[in-house]
C-alpha cells in the first residue's frame, strides 16, 4: 500500500497536525484490535524496533512495536512543537522530524518564504528525503498550514515548491486555513495572496478551510448539546468531542474542537485508500476526477454527520439526511453556498454501512437541486469505505469543485487591495532579500486570473445548453 507524509508548518499547521495524529491513532486502535502492524497503519506510520535504542530499523510485518508518524514538523517558534513533545504524542515523533527556530516569521510571508526558506532548505530536503526513504511507495504529501501568518504561509508554500522540485511524482495536497475577515494579523491579506500564487501553481489539490466556518460549526454543535434536545443522545466519543473525555472540556480548549474537524477531514479523505471497501477511492483519483483544469484545484469540503446519535439502528431517513446536510451551507468548511453556485465536479466519500443503492438514491434525489457545468452533467465521483469513523456508523465527506470558492478569493483580493493601495507595511516585505514589488503584482494578477476563470464558468450557468455537434460519419 502507498504511503503519505504529513508536513505541518507553523503554529496552526502543527496544532491541526497534532489533532490529526491523535485521531489517526485512535482510529487505527479501534479497527486494528490485534495490534498487528498492517498495511493500513503503514500509510501514515512506521513501525520501529526501538529495543536497540534510538531509531531502529523498520519492521514491516508483525506486532506493533513503536509507531512513528510519517511527518515533518516545521515551526519557526518553538512553542507549539515543544508542547507536542511534552504531550501524549511525544513518542510518535523524534527529533529527526523536527525543524524549529526561535525567532518566528513575524507574520511576514517574505521572511518565512525567502529567509527561512533559504536558511532551512537543505535541512528540510534532508528530512523529507529521510521520510521518503522509509516509504516503499510514497504517494502523497499533505501540507497543513495557515495562509495568514508568516511561517505557515511563507515557509509552507516554500516547502510546497520544494516538494515539486524534489518529488515531482508525488501528489501534493494542501490543507490551507484561510484567515477570517476580523483576523488580528494586519498583514494577513498580503500573506494570503502571496501564498495563493504558490498554491495556484504548485499544488495538486487545495482544501481551503475558514476559521469562521469551523467556529460556527463548533458553536452550533454546542448550542444543540446545551439546548438539551440532543444532549442525552449525543455520544461521548463522537467526532468533535473525541479529543477529550467529555463535551465540557471542549470549552477549555476551544481550538481543539475546530482542529478536530480539519483532522477528521484528512482522515476521511484518506480512509478509502487505507481501509477495504466495495468501491475504493485512492488519493490520486481525487485530483483526477475533481480537477478538470490544472489551476482550478480548490475543493470545498463538508463533513457529516458532525455528531452521532446513540441509536445504532440508523433509519435510512437519517442516512439521507447525512447526504442533504453535506450540501447545506452550514456544513461547508468555508463560507460558501455550493447549492447556488456552479459545480464542476463533486466527490462523495462515504464510510461505514452504506451501499451503492444508498448512494444512487441520494444522488438522484439531490441532483435536480444542483447546478453542474454543461459538459459535466454527471460529474459525480464516489467511494465506499467499509470502515466507519470511530463512534459512527457511517459518515460522508463531500468534496466540491464549485465556483462558490470565488467569493472567498474576491474578499481576499479586496482586503489585499485595501492595504496595497496605501502601500501599507510593504517595506517589511521589500527589505527581505529577493522580495520585490513585482512579487505583489504578480501574486495579485495570479489571483485575479483565477477569479476570472471562475467567472467564465459562472457565465455559462443558466444559459441555454447547446451541445457541440458530433463527428459525422459517411456511412
Amino acid at each position, binding site marked *: 500500500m502507498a504511503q503519505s507524509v504529513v508536513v505541518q508548518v507553523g503554529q496552526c499547521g502543527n496544532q491541526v497536525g497534532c489533532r490529526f495524529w491523535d485521531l489517526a491513532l485512535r482510529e487505527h486502535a479501534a479497527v486494528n484490535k490485534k495490534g498487528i502492524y498492517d498495511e493500513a497503519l503503514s500509510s501514515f506510520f512506521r513501525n520501529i524496533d526501538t529495543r536497540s535504542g534510538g531509531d531502529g530499523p523498520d519492521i514491516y510485518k508483525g506486532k506493533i512495536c513503536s509507531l512513528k508518524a510519517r511527518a515533518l514538523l516545521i515551526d519557526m517558534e518553538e512553542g507549539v512543537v515543544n508542547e507536542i513533545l511534552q504531550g501524549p504524542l511525544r513518542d510518535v515523533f523524534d527529533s529527526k522530524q523536527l525543524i524549529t527556530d526561535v525567532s518566528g516569521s513575524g507574520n511576514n510571508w517574505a521572511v518565512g518564504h525567502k529567509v527561512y526558506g533559504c536558511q532551512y532548505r537543505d535541512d528540510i530536503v534532508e528530512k523529507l528525503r529521510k521520510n521518503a526513504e522509509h516509504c516503499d511507495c510514497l504517494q502523497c504529501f499533505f501540507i497543513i498550514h495557515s495562509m495568514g501568518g508568516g511561517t505557515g504561509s511563507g515557509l509552507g508554500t516554500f516547502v510546497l515548491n520544494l516538494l515539486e522540485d524534489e518529488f515531482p511524482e508525488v501528489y501534493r495536497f494542501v490543507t490551507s486555513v484561510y484567515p477570517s475577515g476580523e483576523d488580528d494579523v494586519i498583514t494577513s491579506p498580503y500573506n494570503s495572496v502571496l501564498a495563493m500564487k504558490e498554491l495556484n501553481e504548485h499544488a495538486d489539490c487545495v482544501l481551503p478551510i475558514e476559521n469562521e466556518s469551523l467556529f460556527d460549526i463548533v458553536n452550533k454543535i454546542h448550542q444543540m448539546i446545551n439546548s438539551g434536545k440532543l444532549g442525552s443522545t449525543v455520544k461521548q466519543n463522537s467526532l468533535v468531542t473525541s479529543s477529550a473525555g467529555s463535551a465540557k472540556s471542549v470549552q477549555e480548549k476551544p481550538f481543539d474542537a475546530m482542529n478536530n474537524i480539519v483532522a477528521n477531514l484528512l482522515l476521511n479523505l484518506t480512509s478509502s485508500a487505507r481501509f477495504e471497501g466495495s468501491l475504493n477511492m485512492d488519493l490520486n483519483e481525487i485530483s483526477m476526477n475533481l480537477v478538470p483544469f490544472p489551476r482550478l484545484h480548490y475543493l470545498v469540503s463538508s463533513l457529516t454527520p458532525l455528531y452521532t446519535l446513540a441509536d445504532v439502528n440508523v433509519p435510512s431517513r437519517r442516512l439521507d439526511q447525512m447526504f442533504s446536510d453535506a450540501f447545506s451551507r452550514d456544513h461547508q468548511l468555508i463560507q460558501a453556498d455550493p447549492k447556488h453556485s456552479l459545480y464542476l465536479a463533486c466527490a462523495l466519500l462515504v464510510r461505514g454501512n452504506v451501499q451503492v443503492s444508498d448512494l444512487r438514491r441520494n444522488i438522484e434525489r439531490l441532483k435536480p437541486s444542483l447546478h453542474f457545468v*454543461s459538459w459535466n452533467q454527471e460529474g459525480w465521483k464516489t467511494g465506499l469505505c467499509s470502515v466507519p469513523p470511530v463512534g459512527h456508523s457511517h459518515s460522508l465527506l463531500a468534496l466540491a469543485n464549485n465556483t462558490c470558492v470565488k467569493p472567498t478569493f474576491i474578499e481576499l483580493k479586496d482586503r489585499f487591495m485595501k492595504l496595497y493601495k496605501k502601500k501599507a507595511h510593504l517595506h517589511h516585505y521589500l527589505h527581505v532579500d529577493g522580495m520585490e514589488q513585482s512579487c505583489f503584482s504578480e501574486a495579485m494578477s495570479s489571483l485575479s486570473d483565477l477569479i476570472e476563470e471562475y467567472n467564465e464558468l459562472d457565465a455559462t450557468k443558466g444559459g441555454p445548453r447547446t451541445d457541440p455537434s458530433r463527428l459525422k460519419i459517411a456511412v
Partner: protein
Amino acid sequence: MSIVTVQLGQCGNQIGREVFNTICSDARGAHGLCSKKENESYHDTCKERFFFEEESEVPVARAVLVDMEPKVIGQTLSMAARSGCWKYDGHSHFCQKQGSGNNWANGYSVHGPRHKEAIMNLVQKEAEKCDRLSGFFTIMSMAGGTGSGLGAFVTQCLRDAFPTSFILNHVIWPYGTGEVIVQNYNSVLTLSHLYQSSDALLVHENDVIHKICAQLMNIKQISFRDVNQVIAHQLGSVFQPTYAGEGGLLYSRNPLGDLMETLVPHPEFKMLGLRNIPQMPENSLAYSTFTWPGLIKHLRQMLIANAKMEEGIDWQVRPPRLGSSIPSGCSTNKPLHFNTSIANLVILRGKDVHSVDLGSFWDPSLYTSWLNPQDAFHAWKTPRAFNKYEKSASLVSNSQFLLKPLDNVVGKAWNMFASKAYIHQYTKYGIEEEDFLDSFTALEQVISSYTIL
C-alpha cells in the same frame, strides 16, 4: 478445453471471484435435476474449463489477478480461500502499491508497459497449464484506470502473444452517473482500443443489473456484491457446459470459439449483450413454475423490444414485415423501438430442454438483411439445470442492444472533449488529443454501422 480468466482492477477482481464462486457451487450442486452420468460429465467439463486440480486439493481457478493496488487482491484471495470449495493459485496474481487513479492513460501508457513482462509471465504460466487453451476471458470495468487502461493494454498484449487464441472481454459499463467523473473518456478510450484487439466485448450495464437487483431480486439495500452476483449468475448461464450444437452428443470443448463463430465474425460488430430469465430471489424459486413456451416468448420479446429484464417489457413492439422493406440502410420502415439483430445465441438449461420450440427465433425479420437465420441464430442446450433454476434461458445477442448506451457515452465524452476538460490529466501520461480523436472516430463508425443494420 480451458479458459484463462484475467481479472483486472477492483471491479474485475470482485466480479471474477463471484463468477468462480457461482460456477463452482453450481457444478458441485446436486440439484442438477438430471441423471448422475449427465451431472458427472457436466461437472468434468466445467472443471476442465475453469479449474485445474492439484493432487486431492481443492480446485484452483485458472485465473490471473491483476490490480495496481493491493487491497482488493488481498481481499479476493482470502475470500476465495475461505470458501473452501475452490481457491486461487497463490502465485497467480500481480499487484502494485498504488492504483491508476481512474486515469486510463496511467493504466495504459505507464503501468501497462512497466509491468507487461510480469503480467504476461503469469498469463503464460496459466496458459501452459491448459491441455487445450480455448482463450482468454478478461473481466474489467471501463470506468476506472486499471481495469480500463491496463485492461486495454493487457488485451493488446494477449492478442500479440496469443494470436490464435480467442479473447473475450467482459466489460462493465459504469452507472450513467456517479462512479467516476472521467468515466466517459475512459470508456471511449477503452472501447476503441478493445475493438482493435479483442474478438468480442460482452457488456453488462451496472444500471441494468442494479434494476434487476431492485425489481427482480427484491433487494432493498443493494451492494456491489449483490450486483456482482447477478452478473456472475448471468455469465455462468452462458459459460457453464452445454452440448455442442443441435443434437450434439458431447459437451462442447470449444466454448469461446463456438460463441465467437456464431456471434461475432464480422469485424465491425463485436458488442454482445446478455439477457437471462428467470431471475428471482432464491426463496421464491421454490414456489414458481415456468413453462418453456412462456420463457421463450418472454425472451424473444425482450430481444425485439430491447427490454433489459423480464419486467416492463413493451409487448407492442413487432418485427417489421419483410418483403415490403427496402434493403438495409433505410430504417424508416422499421417499427419504432424495434431492435434489429445481427446474430443471436439462445442457451437453454434444464428439464425437457430438447422439446423446446425455438421457431420464433428463426424468423428472418429479426435479423439484418444480409444474414439469414441459419447463419444468424444458434441454440445451445443441456438438460442439466443451472444454479437451482429448474429451467432457465439465456440470450447472447449481437444486436442494437448497446447502441443507445454507446451513443450516450460517446456523446457525453465528446461534450467534455469539446471544452478540453480533463485533457491535461491524460496528456501528462502521453495520451494526446489526437488519440482521443482517433478513438472518437472509430466509435462513431461503430455507432453508424449498428444504426443502419
